[in-house]
């Protein structure tokens, strides 16, 4: 068997140069796409992703930290947070075409996250990380203290305990309002309840926190 003849004018350094050139082009194109997706709005990014699924990476980059924090304050075990996050993104990917821009994308992905977290906590109640305190809760407690003047006399741990002892539906609205800084319409979209119900639940939750703290 005869090996193919190498052309006389072939220079290995040229091949190397071409390879380097295309690698740079590919990398710059990738950066351009990444940069483009960075300044796109959520709605535009989703539209792009619905056409070109690979763009989902940009959605992951945009929401992974936000959702990890949400998972943490929702009371899920820190160890399973990564796995849970993965499940949320897989669900978002599968149901991406269901999103129709009638609500903000962030509310939609939070809704999926809420359902997934709820499901996880229902199936594995023992995994609720109730002893966890500290960093993920601090901003939430700070906002609660600023809003509810009665809470100013209590420690961070006491307020965290007061939030954690709340029933699921009250805790959900408190986490979304104070930890995630979501508005009533956004909470309504995430939890799929009316705005009136959101406001009622928030009021009851705040009263319950005050009552709990008074009894300490």
């Amino acid at each position, binding site marked *: 068997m005869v090996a193919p003849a190498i052309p006389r004018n072939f220079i290995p350094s040229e091949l190397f140069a071409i390879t380097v050139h295309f690698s740079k082009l590919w990398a710059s194109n990738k950066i351009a796409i990444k940069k483009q997706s960075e300044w796109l709005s959520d709605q535009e990014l989703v539209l792009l992703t*619905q056409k070109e699924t690979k763009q989902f990476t940009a959605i*992951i980059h945009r929401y992974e930290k936000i959702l990890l924090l949400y998972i943490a304050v929702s009371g899920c075990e820190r160890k399973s947070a990564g796995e849970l996050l*993965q499940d949320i993104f897989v669900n978002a990917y599968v149901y991406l075409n*269901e999103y129709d821009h009638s609500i903000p994308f962030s509310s939609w992905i939070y809704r999926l996250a809420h359902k997934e977290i709820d499901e996880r906590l229902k199936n594995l109640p023992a995994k609720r990380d109730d002893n966890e305190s500290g960093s993920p809760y601090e901003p939430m407690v700070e906002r609660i203290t600023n809003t509810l003047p009665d809470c100013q006399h209590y420690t961070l741990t006491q307020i965290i305990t007061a939030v954690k002892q709340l029933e699921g539906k009250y805790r959900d609205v408190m986490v979304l309002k104070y930890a995630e800084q979501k508005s009533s319409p956004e909470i*309504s979209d995430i939890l799929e309840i009316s705005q009136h119900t959101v406001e009622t639940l928030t009021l009851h939750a705040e009263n319950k926190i005050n009552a709990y703290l008074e009894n300490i």
Partner: protein
Amino acid sequence: MPNKVSDAFWSTIEQNQITPIPRWHFVLKQVTLRIVVATLAIIVSLAGAVALYISLNHDFTISHDYTITLLHDYPLLISMLMSMPWSWLVLIMLFFLLVFTVVSRSKKGYSYGIIRISTGLLLATIPLTTVFYASGIGRSTHWYLSENYSDYYHLVNGNEQDWSHPDKGRLGGRVIRYDEKERILILKSFANEFWQIDVKEAKIDSDTLLLPGKYVKVKGVQTTKEGFLAHSIHSRSEVYIAEHPELIKNR
């Protein structure tokens, strides 16, 4: 961390060959949901029209004589309560609950609240009920069901039931045959029994047609098990006459 998450994500997607559910699937779901809601709204409206027809077409609302004979049997309040189409009202409530459940479980249904959904339902069904009632669809539906389904006949307490008491001198039904020479009327009652009615001494309303297939209400006396002596004969409904004025002229 970001790369880890996205890399793990894409590896899961590729390993399990996961693909997004196509858009048409969700569009179809939404369209189906809307068709279901529209169908339920039509059924509620039709039920409303039938209930309205049953409520408004009791003879104590239009005939003084009849009111007296009926009140002889029951006090006014009980008569009115008995004449309410309860089974239809229950059916309407059930369908309302069903529509409410379907709407509240739709994509944006959660944001509407009970009052908005109920108001929307009422706004959609009241005009349709009025149209069904005014066009006679409610009446036709009630008549059809009374005629063809004996269970329905026993379930409602409409005018047909009021006119199914030959022992109390009230008999109604469909004309099967009329012998003008002998002046004998063969009637299939609302309770699906055949009666031979002597109409020799009967006063027949000018708008009443004794033609096969037409419905009449007869006041008189029961003579035998299947025999009846008519004192007066009335048409089942004025609506029929309004629709066929030429028949009165030809008579």
